């Protein structure tokens, strides 16, 4: 059974990082997990590794409300980087059920989905399986 080689969680909430990592591992469909506590750290990493495809994650869970560089700003910065890897699947993953944020989500057509926390095991398994083309 094939696995996703690299998944990244970008979120300043340590509890979410902990729970999400645990859930991802429990699916047994993920090889490695790359964690960033804010958008700025994440974008720095992407910039440095842009030409090394194996270092760029296949799947990203991105929080919106973060210090320094929030989720939207992260996405804007990301657009300016040209990657060796063609496709990165990004899910917004936020506690906000605000209509403003959901409206904003539609302005980024390249996003795969908008997940509202809390996220349970079923939800995360569904996302991973989708990514692997199992569903």
């Amino acid at each position, binding site marked *: 059974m094939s696995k996703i080689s690299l998944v990244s969680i970008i979120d300043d*909430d*340590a*509890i*979410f990082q*902990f*729970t999400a990592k*645990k*859930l991802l591992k*429990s699916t047994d469909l993920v090889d490695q997990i790359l964690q960033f506590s*804010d958008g*700025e750290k994440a974008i720095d990493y992407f910039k440095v590794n842009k030409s090394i495809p194996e270092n760029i994650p296949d799947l990203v869970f991105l929080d*919106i*409300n973060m*210090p*320094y560089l*929030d989720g939207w*700003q992260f996405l804007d910065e990301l657009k300016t980087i040209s990657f060796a890897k063609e496709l990165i699947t990004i899910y917004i993953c*936020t*506690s*906000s*059920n*605000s209509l*403003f*944020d959901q409206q904003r989500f539609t302005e980024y057509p390249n996003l795969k989905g908008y997940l*509202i*926390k*809390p*996220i*349970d*095991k079923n939800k995360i398994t569904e996302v991973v399986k989708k990514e692997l083309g199992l569903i």
Partner: protein
Amino acid sequence: MITSTKNIIEESEVRKQIKVSEDKFQNLISQAPVSIAILEGSSFITVTINKMALEIWGKSYEEVINKPLFESSPELEDGLKTILNNIYTTGVPFISNEIPVQLKRIGKPNMAYFNSVYQPLRDVDNKIYGIILIGTEITEAVNARKKLEASELLNRSMLESSPYCLKILDLEGRVQFMNFNGLCQMEIDNFSTIKNINWDSLWNSENQSLVKASIDIALKGETAQFTAFCPTAKGTPKWWDVVVSPVRNPGEPVQQIISISKDITEQKRSQEATDKMASQLKLATDSANVGVWSLNMQSQELEWSALHKKMWGYDGDRTDLTYEDWYKLIVPEDKEMASKRVEEARINRNFYEVEYRINKADDNVIHFIRSVGSYYYNDKGEAVTMNGISLDITEQKRFTEELEKKVTERTKELGFKTKQLETINKALNENIQLVIQQDKTIETIKEFKFLADSIPQIVWTSQPDGYLDYYNQHWIDYTGMSIEETQGWGWEPVIHPDDLQQCIDVWTESYTTGKPYEIEYRFKRASDGIYKWHLGRALPMRNDQGEIVKWFGSCTDIDAYKKALDLENKISQFEDFNRIVAHNLRGPAGSIDMLISMLAEADSEEERNEMMGMLKDSSISLITTLDELMHVLEVRFNKNMTYDTCNLQELVEETKNMMRGQMISKQAIIKTNFEVPNIEFPLIYMKSIFYNIISNSLKYSHADVPALIEVSSKKHFGKTVLEFADNGLGIDLKKHGKNMFKLNKVFHSGFDSKGVGLFMTKTQIETFGGMISAESEPGKGTKFIITLENV
């Protein structure tokens, strides 16, 4: 044999003859009146030299004979060596004439002149073996010629140096020579034009016979003299004094005639002028009432003109009048002064000029006299006569006095009038300027009013003292009041009661200080009684002196804008609230939910404990955020909280105390400048605002630079502006501007910040009708500007 003997005899005979001839040659040479020397060989050995040559060289026979020439006479080497070498090698003879040679004849240095010929000597094979030098003395001839030249030169230079026009005529009376000065005086450019011309033909026809006669006299050996008029070649009229003399040696016939003409035109003219002047003087003295007198110093005899006598009041025909008759009429007070002047003139030998009074003999009237005179001296330097003139200056004196008096009066009068005129002029000018200015102003105002009436906005003007003297049509339409009702002031019925006092304050400040006027207030619309927000603005118009002549004001309806702004504020606040709920409340709540669902699946007791810890953190975070939100809502709900008088300086001191630790560690300095010392605001919020902004500045300061925070307050367009400026890290406003005051926004890595402070500050300020904005540049600092409505 016989033949041979004979031959021998013949030979010796021949030799004898040769010897004789050689001796003769030597003798000849030594006696010759020329200098001869024969040099042989390339070193020019003197083999033969005669007495004269020795004399020229200044050597004795023994000194030079059989010796190379330049050894015996090295002094000759310079001039002679190249010449001799040249002859010796090329065979070309050298000839030169009149060579000066310094000779010592009879012990005396003597200048002699020679013509020299140096010729090569050739043997039978035509080969040059020597040079013969032959010199002929021509000293006498040269000297004679020089003497002649000198005398001719002398003659010529004498003739030329004469200042007169000098001519030499031949016996026929034709001009042979004229000197340079003569040519100049006669204005003749080229002597050849008159050479050989009969002298008399140069004169006017009426003088030609006179000239001819003078030549005849000279030919007879006598000297003739005449004065005549003769224009120059160019027609300049000139008078000449001419002397014509014969040139001859004593006892010999006349050879030439010399004529010397002296230009006497100037003399002639001055003579004529003098004559003319004398007659004119007589005329002048008589007609000018000038008395002429002459006193003989020895006899004390006085000659004075008839006019002079009359001047003194005597009969002009009297002849018996003496010096005493003249002197006695001088008034006693002036006598000493007059005598003194006359005496001074005698000693100094110059003119005297004196004024004195006389008491006229006939009518005893005092007259003023000016007397001018001088002494005349004989050859021995003795004063012989004293001559002078006297002038009656009484009338003149009176006239002058009168004139002076009048001039003084007129000057005084004129001065006064000029002053008056200046004053009037100045006033006039000022008036004109004023009128021009007024005209301009009126024009401007007329134009302005025309424009003003045609725009859908309230426009008004005011006098410098704040008296409103014009409203446009729109004001009348909007307020429903007539011009008369609102003339001067009359805004009370129109303006919202809450805005009235501020309006009066701001306007008063503007027109008293000249500060541009800007204020927001509500005006009641006459048609429906609704108050609408207006932005009032006014600017002063100044004249050339910078004085305010008029205020131009406008009131723009900003009601829609105000409402939109209000709505935007509300939306913004709603957005903020929504965000807080969405992120800050839902975040920890979501975590709690996830943790609880995972608890059941925990792998171990250890993991379960870890999750329990996280659960606790999440619930604390949830409660904290809820508390903060409660605070924010509290602020909102407490909109009607009572205002306190907040002393800004006290607030700074209090904040400093609260943050003492951070202040010290950041080496912070807070400077204050409060133009407005107190502001009306709920005190606890203002404390919170000060705390949040100052702690923000301290937190985001440069590590290596002491923090400087400047807090100031001022009035700006009727509002109070509170500013906090720091020298800290600053914020990239392009990136973060919109999020600046949002909850949980943090803009700098590595600082402990929850981002609550500025959100709270904003909420507090906006709830009480204020505004907060920020200016910042990364690395340079941040400035927070709080604008508060006056309460």
